[in-house]
Every structure is written in C-alpha cells, then in structure tokens.
C-alpha cells in the first residue's frame, strides 16, 4: 500500500483551551491561551478568536507576557522551543531552541533578559524528575537562537506550572512538590525547604497542589489536596517560619492567584465556585458560585479589573471585578470518554457528542465553536467526586434532524440500573429540541445500540433499541386516539428476540425496508413493515461487533465485523457471504452521502484506516498509523461545499469529511493538499485585512483610507486606483518586528512621503476629472486637499474645504504661493523617484 503524501491527518478544532493558565494582556483587551499546538488570541469583550499564533510543532505548554515588553509574549512547547511573539499582529519574533521538552515557563521583571523553564532532568528526556533552569537571552538579532547555556535554579520541581511562582519583586521563587515547599532566594543564593506531614490527624491530605506569592508582601499562599490554603510567612527562617490556614474548599484547591495589588486572594476547585479571600481579613470572603464546572486555572489581568477562570469543561470565563461574568469562551467539551457516538446533526451540520455532564453539545466544525448545549438529564449536577450521576450514553438523530433520541443511565453500587429513553422533537420556532416523550426503564438492562429508521418519505418515524436483556424494541411515533390537545408521542411497537441471545448492534438499510440486528454470532434481518424475521446470516465464529448496510449502488450489501478479526460482506439478494477478509476492525463506518465505507483497524498499537466500496476489491484509500491507540469514535460530516478533486485517492473526501477521536480525545480529521492551500490562502488574505491593530499608525493610515473613500464615492470599487505606493512602506512598517525597525526619524520621513504621494495622486485624478477648471481654482483646490489631508489626524470631522481653511487663517498670500511652489517641486521630484 502506498502512503498518500497529500492527504494528511490534522488536528481540526476542539483542542483544549483550559490546558494552561490563560494570560490577559496589559490593556485587558486580549486573552491568550495555549490551545493544542498554537496559542489562541481571544478578544475579552467579544469572545471571538482573533487569531492563532501558529508555529509550534507540538503541544504548547505555557504562555507568558514578556515582563519587559507588554506587547510581546513567550510561548513554550513540548517541541523544545520557546517562541517570542508580537501577539497583536501575530508575528513570530524569535525562536529559542532549548532542545528539551519544556513544561512551563516563568519570568520576572527583576530578571531582565532571563526566563525560566521547567525541563526534564538533563540527559534524560523521559525522566520523571524535572528541574527549573534559567535561560539568558542574548541580544542577537537572529530569528532562531540556539540556547547553549542552561543554568540550574531548582533541582526537583513539579512539571505543573501552578507549582512554581515568583515572589515579591522576583526576589525569590517558590516551588511546591509533593509535601515540600521550597523557597529560593536569588540574592543570597539560598533555598529553604519546608515539609508537611503526609496527613494530619483528621486524615486530610496535605499534599501541595498549587502556589502563589503575594505581590507586595512576603507571603506565600499554597493550596492543598484537602482543600486547605496555607499562608506562609517568615519563610526566610528555616525554623521560625509560620503559616495560617484558610479552609473553605472541600476538595483539592486547583488554583490560587493574588490580585495585582495583593488585596485579595482568589482560589478555585472542583466546587466551581470562585472564592475571593480578603488578604489580612481572611474571615471575610466573597463567592462567585455556579460557574458551571470545576475551576482549573485562575488568572487576573495586570490592572486587576478582569479575572478569568478556566474550567474543566474546556471553558474560559471572564469575570469583571469578581461579581459579573462578562464573557464565556467555550471550547469543545471533552470528558475522559465519549459515551455517545460522534453524530452529525443533519440540520446544523454540527458535531454532536457528550458535553457537560448530562448534556449533549452541538459543536460547529466549520467555525470551531460550540453552538449550544442541550440539557438531556435535566437534573442538577452535583460537583463531588465519586458520586454516580445520570449520564447520556446513547443518542441518535433521524434523517431529517427533526427527532433526537437519547438514552441516559445511572448505575449506583447498591441500586439497580436506572435507564431513561427520551425522544426530542425539533421545534422550528425556538430552533431547538423539545422533549416529546420520556420512557423510563425502556429495557431491563443496558442499551447496547439504538438507531433511527432512515426513510425520508415514510410518515412513520421509528427508532430501534437493543439491550443486554436479550430484546430489541421498536418505538413508533403515534397520535393518541382520544385526546386532541396532546401531540403525537412515542410508544413501543414491537419487541423482538432471537433464541434469548443478546443483541449487540442494529442497523437500518438506507431505504428503511430492512433492519439488521446482530445477536452475538448471528445476524438477523427483519422487515420493519411486518416485523417478520426474513433471514439469518451467520458467519462463524465470533460475535458481531459492527454492522453496516451499504449505500446507494451498494445497498444490497450488509457488512459486519466480528470479534475474530473478520470483516464480512453479505449479499442480501443471495443471502450469502460475498467476501470476507481478516482484519481487526475496531470501527466500521458508512458515509451517508456515498457508497464509501471506512474501517479503522487496530494493529500493533496503531490504527490504520481503509476506505473502500463494498463492491470493489481494492480499497480506495488506505493510511497506515493515523494515530496511536484504538479509534472507537468517528463520523462522516458532510461538507458545506463539495470539493472538485479528481484525484482517485482524495475523491472519497469530496462529499464528506471524516472526523475521528483518538484515545487521548483529540479530534482529528483528514485534509487534502488542495484544501490546505485554500485554507492558507484565505487566512493570509484575512490576515492582511485584519491584522492591523489600533496603533497610532493605523489611525493615521485608516483615516487616510477613509478620506480616500470619501473623496471618491463615485468611483467604482473595481476601478479603484491601486493602493498608493507609499502604503507599501507603511505595511512594511507595521509588519516588521519592532526591534528590526530603523530609527523613528527615518520612519517619520517615510510616512510623510507616503502621504504626500497619495495626495498628489488624488490631485491628479481631480485634474483629470475637472480639466476645464481654471488653473487658479485648480491650484487652490489642490492646496485645500493638501491641508485637509495633513490636518486629518487632529481634526477627524473636517472633510470640507471650509474647515480646512478656517484651520489655517494665519497664512498670508505670499506664504500660500510659496507653499504651492514647494509642493509642485516636491511632487515632480517624488513621482520621478517612486514611479518605476
């Protein structure tokens, strides 16, 4: 088999934004957070992602504002590099190559030109032990700097970035690991270590979880696994240190943060309550409850106006002055596992899967944004570890997306299994799903599979569920006979069983005329119209794992995989086995828009993908080792616009796109080269339009552009004169990193020049338009233009000539003339210089 270079497996959306502590910029306008292999820049006011800082080739493990320049940000990654970015424009300024995986980054204003990173103990990349090293940045202008010199600071630290924090003014650094707090004073070059006992008398666990230092006083706050917060003082004595204890959290404190003035201490944990402790007055505390999910990180903006909390459900909440949630940035919610299959909502074309506990989430793949959560369980979620709560385990859509069936279950140790089957109708008015029918205890045991009958024309909707209790049940929508006010509801239509075997999978054929249910090793085919057992297919040995009908031209085929590593294809016309092949298929999936089927095979710890048509012996596409581990969830998502690829290999991606979840819950997809190029191009264009931040230069240039537009409202956009030559200089100016720019005086003249050119251009155009005008008048005109364009930045409203004149009343006639002459000289000289 040939590796296909042009189809790549890529991360597409849904990456974690709660992995590391987010960073709020000095002006509180942007929020930066590590997200997969890039750093995302969000607007704090609109919640929109402004741009990504792409460049790392592995997981980004830390984002940090450069202390000496608040417009630049460091990011570190497991790929062994630290990159310095200009985050407003998204420009990579520098790359420091460290050569070891980096787990977190710290810096302090006191240590200029130094940043501190946590790397594994030297010489061993897989080491369990980590150390904090200082890296001195040289002032070289190179884009890529190989860092040779690493100086050790602390020997044994935790890889968690919350476990290291700089103290007041960067004089010392505090690090916690296990049961030890270590404080290292830079000036005295001395470390103090403080140990706690494993547990106190009451059995509370004393293990440190996080640390934070007071910005103004010598006080270190540490969080502990039993929910206590300790405030350490006098820690420059190895014996006379002291601490006080604050206790509100009932479970581990996951994050601590002092406000910039040090007046408040913020803490959070699994309770999903942000607690604000008044420093020095610890008995007074404020709470911001009901934040939705466990708090994983807390960050405060440098001016203290904004707090932001990351949550375990991949969410960032921005809070204004501890009282009001002002914005919520929600990523794809990923738990430890997805119990429901990956689904695609036929209406919104969004990806549907388990979200918050008891919810289904609708995630737009195109926009990489969570659309909404649908509360399935409709019960209060209690934030406590170890508590068994209702979980959504199955969900299915019908073909048109007007019905949704969900199954929720709760298994407690002592009580019996609780099951609910819920059917939801799409409400056109509210544009969301409304609960139609709840069937409690639809089966006596776990539901193993559920599917809708995918007919588009029939009036009757039907859903089939199979259960471990040995039955499969068909549920049908029926209008109640007697009551008029109630709408139609769902009821059980048929209960089927086969030799008291346990049904595992079920599948409807594309036209809805056949239902295949697998009972361990036997596949039974039923007619849903009459509930007649049509035939049984069995291909010993091995229990059936997946079952799939072929589509379109291949609809006569039924495919199944068995536990004995066989992929079988039955011909339903002859009721015989058409072909079978030996492969360990973990997931078999049919593309709803084509005949293609995809099979994920697990081999030697890696997963391979095969895309094939049941009728053809050769696979259309195969890709070895798409990821490590087993793939158990995947889905074909229809494309918004079809691709026109004619390449044989990538044809199967034309109509729909294949998404899958790896064992680490990463959402991956396949892209073609063409698609990628297209994407790149569009993002580039986007960047040019949008990347100009609100700098003084932008104001100048923006006004200038506005003015252009105002002056030539009649000219069609197609005929618009090309961007003036001078603006190339400005563009260059805005895009070049600040440190490589020449001196301001030089720049100033460049800008002025560019502006002058544009005026001349317009003047000439005017000339062309009004050729019959008197020369005197013309000169006046041009002069007015000139004045107004120069004065624009200070007088934004003055577009008219009168305003410009009134603004320069002091000029005498002679001066006017002089100016005009000067300008004329200028123009000719410059145009000669600049026109190629």
């Amino acid at each position, binding site marked *: 088999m040939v590796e296909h270079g042009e189809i790549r497996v890529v991360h597409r959306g849904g990456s974690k934004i709660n992995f590391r502590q987010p960073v709020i910029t000095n002006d509180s306008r942007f929020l930066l957070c590590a997200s997969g292999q890039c750093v995302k820049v969000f607007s704090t006011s609109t919640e929109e992602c402004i741009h990504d800082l792409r460049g790392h080739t592995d997981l980004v493990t830390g984002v940090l504002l450069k202390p000496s320049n608040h417009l630049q940000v460091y990011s570190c990654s497991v790929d062994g590099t630290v990159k310095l970015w200009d985050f407003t424009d998204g420009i990579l300024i520098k790359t420091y190559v460290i050569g070891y995986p980096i787990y977190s980054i710290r810096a302090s204003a006191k240590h200029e030109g130094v940043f501190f990173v946590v790397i594994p103990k030297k010489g061993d990349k897989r080491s369990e032990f980590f150390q904090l090293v200082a890296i001195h940045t040289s002032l070289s202008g190179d884009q890529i700097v190989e860092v040779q010199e690493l100086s050790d600071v602390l020997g044994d630290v935790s890889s968690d970035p919350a476990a290291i924090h700089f103290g007041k003014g960067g004089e010392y650094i505090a690090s916690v690991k296990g049961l030890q707090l270590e404080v290292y004073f830079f000036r005295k070059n001395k470390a103090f270590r403080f140990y706690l006992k494993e547990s106190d008398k009451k059995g509370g666990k004393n293990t440190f979880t996080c640390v934070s230092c007071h910005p103004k006083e010598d006080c270190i706050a540490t969080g502990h696994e039993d929910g206590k917060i300790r405030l350490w*003082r006098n820690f420059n004595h190895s014996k006379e240190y002291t601490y006080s204890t604050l206790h509100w959290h009932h479970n581990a404190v996951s994050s601590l943060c002092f406000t910039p003035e040090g007046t408040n201490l913020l803490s959070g944990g699994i309770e999903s309550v942000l607690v604000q402790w008044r420093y020095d007055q610890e008995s007074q505390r404020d709470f911001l409850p009901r934040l939705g999910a466990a708090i994983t990180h807390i960050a405060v903006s440098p001016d203290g106006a904004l707090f932001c909390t990351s949550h375990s459900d991949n969410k960032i909440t921005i809070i204004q002055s501890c009282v009001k949630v002002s914005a919520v940035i929600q990523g794809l919610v990923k738990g430890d596992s997805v119990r429901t299959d990956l689904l695609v909502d036929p209406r919104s074309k969004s990806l549907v899967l388990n979200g918050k506990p008891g919810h289904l989430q609708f995630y737009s793949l195109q926009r990489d944004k969570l659309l909404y959560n649908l509360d399935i369980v409709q019960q209060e979620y209690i934030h406590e570890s170890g508590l068994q709560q209702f979980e959504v385990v199955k969900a299915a859509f019908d073909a048109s997306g007007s019905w949704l069936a969900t199954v929720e279950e709760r298994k407690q140790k002592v009580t019996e299994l609780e099951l609910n089957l819920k059917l939801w109708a799409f409400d056109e008015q509210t544009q969301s799903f409304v609960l139609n029918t709840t069937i409690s205890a639809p089966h006596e045991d776990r539901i193993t599979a559920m599917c809708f009958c995918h007919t588009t024309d029939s009036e009757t909707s039907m859903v089939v569920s199979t259960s471990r209790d040995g039955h499969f049940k068909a549920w049908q929508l029926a209008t109640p006979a007697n009551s008029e006010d109630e709408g139609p509801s769902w009821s059980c239509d048929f209960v089927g069983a086969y030799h008291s075997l346990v049904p595992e999978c079920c599948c409807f054929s594309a036209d809805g005329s056949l239902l295949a249910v697998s009972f361990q090793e036997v596949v039974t085919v039923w007619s849903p119209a009459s509930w007649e057992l049509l035939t049984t297919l069995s291909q010993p040995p091995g229990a059936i794992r997946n079952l799939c009908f072929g589509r379109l031209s291949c609809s006569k085929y039924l495919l199944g995989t068995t536990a004995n590593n066989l992929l079988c294809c039955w011909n339903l016309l002859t009721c015989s086995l058409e072909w079978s092949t030996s492969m360990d298929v973990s997931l078999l999936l049919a593309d709803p828009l084509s005949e293609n089927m995809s099979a994920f095979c697990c081999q030697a710890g890696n997963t391979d993908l095969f895309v094939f048509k049941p009728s053809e012996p050769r696979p259309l596409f195969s890709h070895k080792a798409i990821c490590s581990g087993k793939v158990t969830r995947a889905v074909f998502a229809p494309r918004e616009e079809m691709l026109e690829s004619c390449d044989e290999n990538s044809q199967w991606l034309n109509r729909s796109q294949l998404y899958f979840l790896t064992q680490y819950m990463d959402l991956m997809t396949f892209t073609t080269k063409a698609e990628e190029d297209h994407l790149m191009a569009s993002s580039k264009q986007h960047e040019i339009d949008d990347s100009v931040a609100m700098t003084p230069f932008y104001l100048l240039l923006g006004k200038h552009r506005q003015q252009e537009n105002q002056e030539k409202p009649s000219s069609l956009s197609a005929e618009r004169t090309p961007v003036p030559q001078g603006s190339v200089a400005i563009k260059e100016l805005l895009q070049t990193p600040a440190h490589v720019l020449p001196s301001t005086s030089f720049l100033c003249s460049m800008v002025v020049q560019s502006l002058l050119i544009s005026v001349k251009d317009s003047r000439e155009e005017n000339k062309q338009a009004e050729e019959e005008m008197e020369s005197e008048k013309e000169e006046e005109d041009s002069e007015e233009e000139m004045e107004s364009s120069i004065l624009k930045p200070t007088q934004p409203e003055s577009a008219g000539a009168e305003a410009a004149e009134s603004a320069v009343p002091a000029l005498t006639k002679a001066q006017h003339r002089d100016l005009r002459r000067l300008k004329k000289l200028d123009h000719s000289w410059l145009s000669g210089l600049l026109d190629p």
Partner: protein
Amino acid sequence: MGEFKVHRVRFFDYMPSAIRAMALNRFTERLALVRADGALEIFCFADNYFQEKVIPGQEGRAVEALCWVGQRLFSAGLNGEITEYDLENLRPLYTVEAYGGPIWTISSNSQGTLLAVGCEDGTVKIFEVLEGRIQFQRNLDRQKGRIISLSWHPSGAQIAAGMMDMIRIFDAETGHATHRLLVERGVGASKSKEVVVWSIVFLSDHTIISGDSAGKVQIWDGFTGTLVRTHLVTKWDVLALSVSHDESSLVAGTSEGTVTQFQFLSPNVGQQEKEWVRTRTFKNHSHDVRALAHTDIAVVSGGMDTQLVVRPLLDKVEKNTRESAQRKIAFPHRNLVCCAKKAGLLLFQFPDHLEVWRIGESDGQGKPGDSLPVKRNPEKLVQLKIKGKDHICCSALSPCGGWLAYSTVSSVRLYRLQCDSLSITKISRLPKELCWAHQLCFSSDSSKLFASVSNSSVIVAALNQLECKYLHTLKPKSGSRQPVHLLQASEDGKWLAAANTDCEVHVYDLSKLKLHCTVPVYSSCPTALAINPTTSNLVVVHADQQIFEYSLRQKEYTEWSRKLQKQGLHFLWLERDTPITNVTFNPKNSAHIILHDTFMFCIIDQSLPLPESKTVLFNQMTLRSLPEAERKQHSHAFKISKNYQHLLCVNLLEDHSLVVVERPLLEIMSQLPAPVRQKKFAT
C-alpha cells in the same frame, strides 16, 4: 509475661473538674491552674510537666483568676475574696475580703509590689503586697459596669481594664481613667447584647489587645486609644488571651475549643515594621478554652473539657524531641484509688466523698484472653460523704480492709470498717498531732497509720481495736519544708519510704523508728516508689521516666540499677508522656516489678536482658506469634501491655489476680455539657 486473672474495673466514675484559670510563673517554670471545684494544681514544666502539688478545693470557692507574685500565689473568686496559698503545706494561707462584690480578675504589676483586682461593682482595687500579707491601698476611679479583665503595662504606670462594651485605661499613679476604648458589639441578633471584654493584654509598646464575647481579637493603640486592627476569630466568644514573654506571639482561646495564634511579624522580609498577623489555629479542645498560658516553647490551654493540653510551637523546639510532642494531661499524677490487697476492696477518692467497693469474683477457667463469667458482681459497700466544706486531699484503706482514713486541709478522720457486717465506726479520739495530713498510709499488717505532715515529717500512730495512739514523729535530716507526696510502707513492715517535692526520698527504719537513709537526690521528682519485700530494694520512678533501684541493706544502687543507667532506657520508654503512678511487686517472683502509667502497664523482669535501642520495645504481640523456643531470644526485660487504656490503678491482689481500674476518656467526654453549636461541613 506471666498470666493473671484480671479484674477489669470500670465502675470508678471519676470525673475531673473543668479548668477555670491558670497562671504561669516564668522563673520557677511552674504552672498553677485552678479547677471549677476550687482545686489548685501546680505543674512543674521543667520536670516533664509533672503535677507536683494539689491543693484540694472547697465547696463554694469559685476561683476566677490566679496570679503569681514571685513565689507567692494569689487567687480571687466570685466569693469576693482574695486568697493566698501556702504552697509548702498545701492549704490556703489567708483570705482577704475585697468588699467590691464578686471579683472577676486579679493581676499583679511586673515589679510584684501591687495587686489589682477587678470587681463587680466597677472598681479596680489596688492591694499592696507585703511580707506575709496584703493590704488594701486604694480604689481607682469607679466605673459603671463590672471589671472583667485587667492588665498592667510592664512599666506598672498604666492599667488596662476590660469591661462591658468598653476598655478603660487607668493611670496607676493618679488612679484616673485616661482613655475609653469603645468595643463594637456583635452583628445580627447579638447587637442588642452587651459585649464582654473577657481578656486583655497590655504590651510594652503600648499596644492593647483585647478578646471579647463577639468573637473579635482587637488590637488598639494605647497612646491614642484608637483601634488598629480587628480579627474576627470566631462566631462565639474569645475567652482567654496570652502573650509570650518576648511579645512576639499571642494566643487566643475561643468557645469553639480552638486556640488561634497571632504573631508579630514584618510583612516584608528584612524590614523593621511589624504587625500582628493571624497564623495558626490549634483545635485540641471540644469545649470552651477558659485558660491559656504561653510559655517560651509551647501553648498551654485548658477549659471545660477538663484536659490540660501542652501544644509545642514547632518553630521554637527541635523536631522529634521530648519538647516537640504534644501532651494532654487528663488524669491526675497521683493515686485516687487505694487497693486493700488482702480483702479485695477498692477505695475510690472523689473530691467530696469516698467509695469502697468489693470487686467481683469468678471461678471460671479459660484461655488467656477470654473473659470469664462473673459469679459475684462487684458491689459498692460504703459511700462516705465528707463533713464540712473542705474537699478530700488524701485517703487510705488498710490492706486488711479494716481501716479507712482520709484527710482534708482541716482534719483527719479515721474509720473502722467491717465489711462482713457492713458497719463503719468513726474513731472519735485521734492524737492531737494528727490534725491534717498530706499523705496517709497503713502498714501492711494494718497495725500502724502513717501520716505525713508539714516539713516532710511523718507521724506514726499505732492502731488497735478501736483506738489510735500517737507513737513517734519521723523527721528527715535535710530540713526540707516541702510536702511529702509519696508515702509507702514495705510489705514486711520494716521500712517506710517518703518522697517530697524537693525530690528527696527518705527511708525510715520502722523497727528503730528512725531515719535509715536518704536516697541520693535525683533532679527529677519521684512519681512512684515501692520497696521490694523480699530483697528490700527500693524502686523509685521519676517524672523523667528514669527508674532507680536502691538497696536499703547496702545503701547503694543495685547492680541492676547501675546496668540500667549505664545502658540507658529505651527511647520509646522515655518518650511516654504520662508518669508511672504506681509500682508493685509480684510476691511469687521477686524479680518482677509491676508498674503502670495511663496508657500501659509493664512488668519489668530483672532476670532478662535489658532492651537495646534497636530492639522493639512493644514486642508482646510478636512474641506471642513466635514458637516457644524462639521467644527466649527475643524477649527482654520490659514486658508492656497496652490492652488496658486510661488506667487509674493497676495492683496485684493477694490471690495473685490483677486489678485494673480504667476510666475511658470517652465516658468523661460524654458527661460533659454540650459544646457550643458549630456548623460542620456537610451536616
């Protein structure tokens, strides 16, 4: 270890009394504490927190406050009297009426020349401390409302007084109030209630710290009379405050049973400015913490739950030393149980009555560890209520069970007891020398009564049928004025050993009625002693857990004792925090010494090798699992059993059965009143 039939006695309803107040004497390192029944106890902190002296209480003596002036101890109470105690004869020395109604507080200036008492009528009365007495000097300006707490400025020029809703600062020279600091009331429902300033501390930098009934610890500037900081410590009351001598640390005791520490720290390392920061919280009590003392290395707290807790401050002590261990002193360091070995009777001493019980009997046989069926239940034979107001200070039951004696600070009473016919007759005529006693003891043949009186001397009185006759007074040569706290006659009737709180042990020859020898004085106070009847060796156990064996015949330490001292005791033995309170011998095996503390009893087999520092001290369970042959190798001299806990007495009866008197702490706890309501998480 040997096998015994054990009488497990749990019918001694000993109930300690709540701790009311305490006072620490920094120079002698002694802590005086007073309980709700008026009993005064003196603990020597230098000597392993040993309870040196006990002065029994008195009905109706409600002591509210204690105060040391040099070596002298004063108390004041709600009966409106100031009492000075005679610590050598363990009795109140004199009582002075203050004429100001109930007294809430007493405090002396640092020079030890003046005493100030705060009275219910709003006056602060100054008494001059004179040789052997105190004399009223004057009243400070009378205030409206009672004076609850007082604190002198270390210079002695000013006094701060905590009152209802306010704090007053008086000029000690003029007697005029110079400042009035208004204390804010609690919020909510308690707004209408007056706030009580329970405790106040005046620091040398003129900072005043107050603790009040609204749960606040407030820090005031004494110059300007302004509030500096408020720390809300509890929802209930802050009852006690205590500051360390160097004024760098302060502790506050609350009604919730917590003790909160405040430290005087500089917020920035290396700067001079300091402020009071709340740091640690200790929770060692279930009830109100009424009394607190801050030593240099530890916080001592006591309260309603009757336990004295010594909580070391880990920043002041070395780790894993004897000082770094927390101590809870729940039981007195002396015997409240007297066992008549021959008659099988037990005498229980309560503050205001005595009980005599006959222990049960059983004829069943069983394997070791079985509980045998009881043939005859234990029964209470006598309950003897005392006459008068004074509480019992000591009591004794003769080994034959025929005599019962007890003493209060004012009188000694002797009774003839007939258990068979259940009659008790008071011996009305006692020798006039026998007016009160620190310790009482009968000889083993019940023919003599020994009573220790003042100046460490012992009175010997002969008993016959219904008569008590004075024989002799035994006097030590040292001329010590300290009271005898241990008195023990030997089984064979030859010797009498008496130990006093000067750590002297005198042994008298009873046949010659004169001093036989004085055991070389050891620095720690003896906690238990006994004379081995077969070998005439005196075994003395000291408060620092050392054991000495002294041969009375040779007048020198025995070979075994020297070996023990040379090798040293096992570190686990030395780390135990309760003293040995009783020593007895096994008459069947003279090499066995039986001793016990609160949490274990131990049989020392002098024939076995002493444990090395590496050997397992508590090895009885492992020995049991070993085969017979191997046991020999692993066994050592200290055979310790922890099967019985909270022991008040372990004694061997004549029929070779062991009496174990237990008083489980949980039973004491269950008899305490309900603590203040506290919100517990998840309830």
